[in-house]
């Protein structure tokens, strides 16, 4: 770790940042020494209970990718039942011997509940904030680690009780929670209501709490690190959009999570100690009388969505940030409208707190209230639209290189257009009356979360893999992975829109005994076949991921000729990240700048003599 020798580079606006950094730096430096001793102590503290943000990030990455596979397999079982209801499930037949090899209807409710739970709480949220947030934040702002390395380590290890509770619930009665990932009472709060509402639901709530604790630790750490530990010259408006999106996501987490945690405890108390927060008077559920009453089931929905709607943005904003960075690098062009991009992230986050009621248009909530939520929901489409226009603007006049990370980032934009536009149907309250709880909704959030976020995450893996492991992933395999995934996901998810238009409901183990939906079976069979193929082609990715780790081309520091700070470090960066003190002279998107002869202009590169240094982001 080099000593701080930045005084000579000091320029107008970096003074305060410099002072702050000094403070944060010396604190982290002290820690780095302490950690150095741990390193000498052995393998465990370096790779297992590590306090290095990069190791923690990669730990999150591996854990979440394994759960991604679990979630995908759960989805396939759901799809199997939708295509060939009550037929024997291949490979799982021996699990259902009591039912003669078929899936029981309660198993079906468990499968979609746990599919969503795993994908949301164990994959998307932790892979964005936990894996990429951890890995990228210190590197991209020029810090040597997070502000609180021990807290950071704990944020990972607090995921393990969650893994245990969610994973363990598969082995309890009902084989897992089965009241939907939204866990609406009184189905979820009364153990008599469903086989999965017993121990499994208690474990689900415990798992959720631990995920929340983990996220909160991460969130506090990210906010502090980004505010306090930026390198000299790295003003807020010189931060890459990845960091902006991680920062705003951390703020969202910090404000929304306490509500979910409290609601989770209330439901636990309803279940374990007989309180009645969510149970009204005189409910008789499955012949079981619930003595405590006086509660309101809708209260849970308000509390749950007060968190879980902002959580939707927690699940997409970091991907938007990463995609912005990837697009600028491979278009070899500055991002179009940097500040509007930042403001629209902030706008989405702000509006995100006042739209939760759109999940409750037909819930029995006062319809007048529904109307106000409808207006705020319509308006949240605006910052999303601005982002799309700016991404397209970034492509305009660029030198677009169709490398694998870029293909995934481009598909994020293309697919997010679909996911964004379908949201307008649901925001329209009268239309929502019809399409609420149909496959139209399923189409919408899979376009946002799978075709959007997950594709963005794939792009980010291909993009930052060389930094993480020092080797490039194979381009040919990457492109095969991209093309097949892109085509198949559209064949799986696009027809869901038209299913929804017919009114095809979600969460039915066998929808075909309704006259209205009987004719939809062949289409569902087609979608299931595509879904099977979609999961199968991920083998290409898994192979590429592990093969490249050992046999990939060595990457060097900056294989993509990128401007941001992480690419100025060795690949992979050593403990303490930078082998020089980074000083930032400009914004992160100076591609094709006339100031230099190369088509990129790293943030740390000293300006040529005679060129005045712009005070902040250059425009």
């Amino acid at each position, binding site marked *: 770790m080099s000593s701080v020798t930045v005084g000579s580079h000091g320029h107008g606006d970096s003074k305060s940042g410099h002072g702050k950094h000094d403070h944060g730096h010396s604190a982290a430096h002290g820690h780095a020494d302490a950690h150095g001793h741990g390193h000498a102590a052995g393998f465990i503290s370096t790779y297992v209970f590590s306090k290095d943000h990069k190791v923690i990030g990669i730990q999150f990455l591996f854990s979440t990718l394994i759960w991604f596979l679990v979630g995908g397999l759960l989805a396939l079982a759901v799809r199997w039942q939708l295509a060939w209801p009550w037929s024997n499930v291949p490979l799982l037949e021996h699990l259902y011997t009591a039912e003669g090899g078929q899936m029981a209807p309660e198993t079906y*409710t468990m499968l979609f509940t746990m599919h969503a739970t795993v994908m949301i709480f164990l994959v998307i949220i932790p892979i964005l904030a936990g894996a990429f947030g951890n890995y990228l934040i210190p590197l991209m702002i020029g810090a040597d680690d997070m502000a609180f390395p021990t807290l950071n380590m704990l944020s990972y290890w607090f995921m393990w009780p969650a893994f245990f509770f969610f994973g363990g619930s598969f082995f309890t009665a009902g084989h897992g929670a089965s009241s939907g990932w939204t866990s609406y009472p*009184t189905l979820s709060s009364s153990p008599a209501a469903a086989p999965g509402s017993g121990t499994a639901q208690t474990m689900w709530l415990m798992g959720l709490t631990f995920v929340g604790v983990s996220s909160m630790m991460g969130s506090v750490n990210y906010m502090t690190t980004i505010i306090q530990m930026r390198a000299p010259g790295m003003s807020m408006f010189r931060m890459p959009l990845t960091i902006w999106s991680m920062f705003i996501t951390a703020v969202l987490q910090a404000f929304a999570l306490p509500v979910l945690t409290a609601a989770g405890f209330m439901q636990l108390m309803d279940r374990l100690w007989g309180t009645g927060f969510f149970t009204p008077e005189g*409910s008789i559920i499955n012949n079981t009388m619930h003595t405590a009453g006086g509660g309101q089931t809708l209260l849970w929905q308000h509390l749950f969505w007060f968190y879980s709607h902002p959580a939707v943005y927690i699940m997409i904003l970091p991907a938007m940030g990463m995609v912005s960075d990837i697009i600028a690098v491979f278009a070899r062009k500055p991002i179009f409208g940097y500040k509007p991009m930042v403001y629209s992230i902030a706008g989405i986050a702000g509006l995100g707190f006042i739209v939760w009621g759109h999940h409750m248009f037909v819930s029995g909530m006062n319809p007048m209230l529904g109307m106000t939520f409808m207006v705020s929901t319509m*308006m949240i489409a605006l910052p999303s639209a601005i982002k799309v226009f700016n991404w397209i603007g970034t492509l*305009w006049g660029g030198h677009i290189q169709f490398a694998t990370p870029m293909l995934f980032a481009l598909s994020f934009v293309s697919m997010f257009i679909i996911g964004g536009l379908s949201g307008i149907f649901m925001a329209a309250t009268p239309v929502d009356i019809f399409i609420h709880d149909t496959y139209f909704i399923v189409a919408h959030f899979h376009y946002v979360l799978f075709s959007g976020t997950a594709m963005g995450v794939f792009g980010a893996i291909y993009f930052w893999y060389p930094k993480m492991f020092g080797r490039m992933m194979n381009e040919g395999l990457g492109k095969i992975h991209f093309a097949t995934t892109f*085509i198949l996901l559209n064949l799986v998810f696009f027809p869901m*829109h038209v299913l929804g238009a*017919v009114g095809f*409901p979600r969460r039915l183990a066998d929808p075909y005994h309704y006259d209205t939906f009987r004719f939809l079976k062949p289409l569902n069979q087609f979608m299931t076949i595509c879904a099977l193929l979609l999961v199968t082609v991920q083998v290409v990715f898994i192979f590429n991921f592990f093969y490249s780790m050992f046999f990939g081309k060595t990457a060097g520091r900056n294989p993509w000729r990128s401007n941001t700070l992480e690419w100025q470090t060795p690949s992979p960066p050593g403990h303490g990240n930078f082998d020089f003190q980074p000083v930032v002279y400009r914004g992160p*998107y100076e591609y094709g700048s006339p100031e230099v002869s190369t088509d990129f202009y790293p943030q740390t590169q000293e300006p040529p003599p005679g060129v005045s240094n712009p005070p902040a982001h250059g425009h």
Partner: protein
Amino acid sequence: MGKIWSLLFLLVLIGGVGCFLVAPSYNLTLPQDVSSHGHAIDHLYVFILVLTGVVFVATQAVFFWFLWKYDAANNREPVKYTHGSHTLEIVWTIIPAATLLFIALYQMNAWASSKMRMPNILPTVEVSARQFEWRLRYPGPDQILGTRDDLFHVNDLHIPVNEEILIDLKSQDVLHSFFLPNLRVKQDAVPGMKIPVWFKATETGSYDIVCAELCGWGHYKMKGRLVVQSRQDYDRWLQEMYKAQAQTASPPASEEDN
């Protein structure tokens, strides 16, 4: 290669539009509407479909065109070094904002008539959902619900055609949702709440009642039937049911719970 990737993204545009154009000929569109208010909902759906369709085609087309044209392998012009355009930002903020605000205002009337302007009539029937059936309670000859002459029935909801129907929707245990796809009606049944649901059926016939909110393992089979009859047939049906109920010696068990 860049051209091929651009064409792959063009497929999104072609496939997306194609899917929605072809779907209606396979009946993959809104099911038959037999309600008086449904056309307003269907109109809004089509309106938004066309509007979003235009935006979809425009953005995907420009997206494709930029990928095609600015492929690094072909584009010999220098990179356009720009950080954005204030004018463009204003334009693409104001226009979508105005459009979204228009949609927001445009739909309010349909929402209000579906959910806010309750007709001033006595309830036609009480629908009480429970795992996994729809319990029905008709007011009986005195026209008042909750009295001793009420008529009880399950899953088989008869109503007269072309008359305003008011339903008291309840749940006895967990959440359910009363979904009539052909009448564009959906309303959750919430334990502890009595929620009014109203509509007017315009054609006689038999239609599905679907439970649209997860209510447990048997959610998929919580199926009811809505029979829309002429006033004459409906009255006759009520008489028959009433007679049949009077003949059974013991009063139905569900009379105790309200």
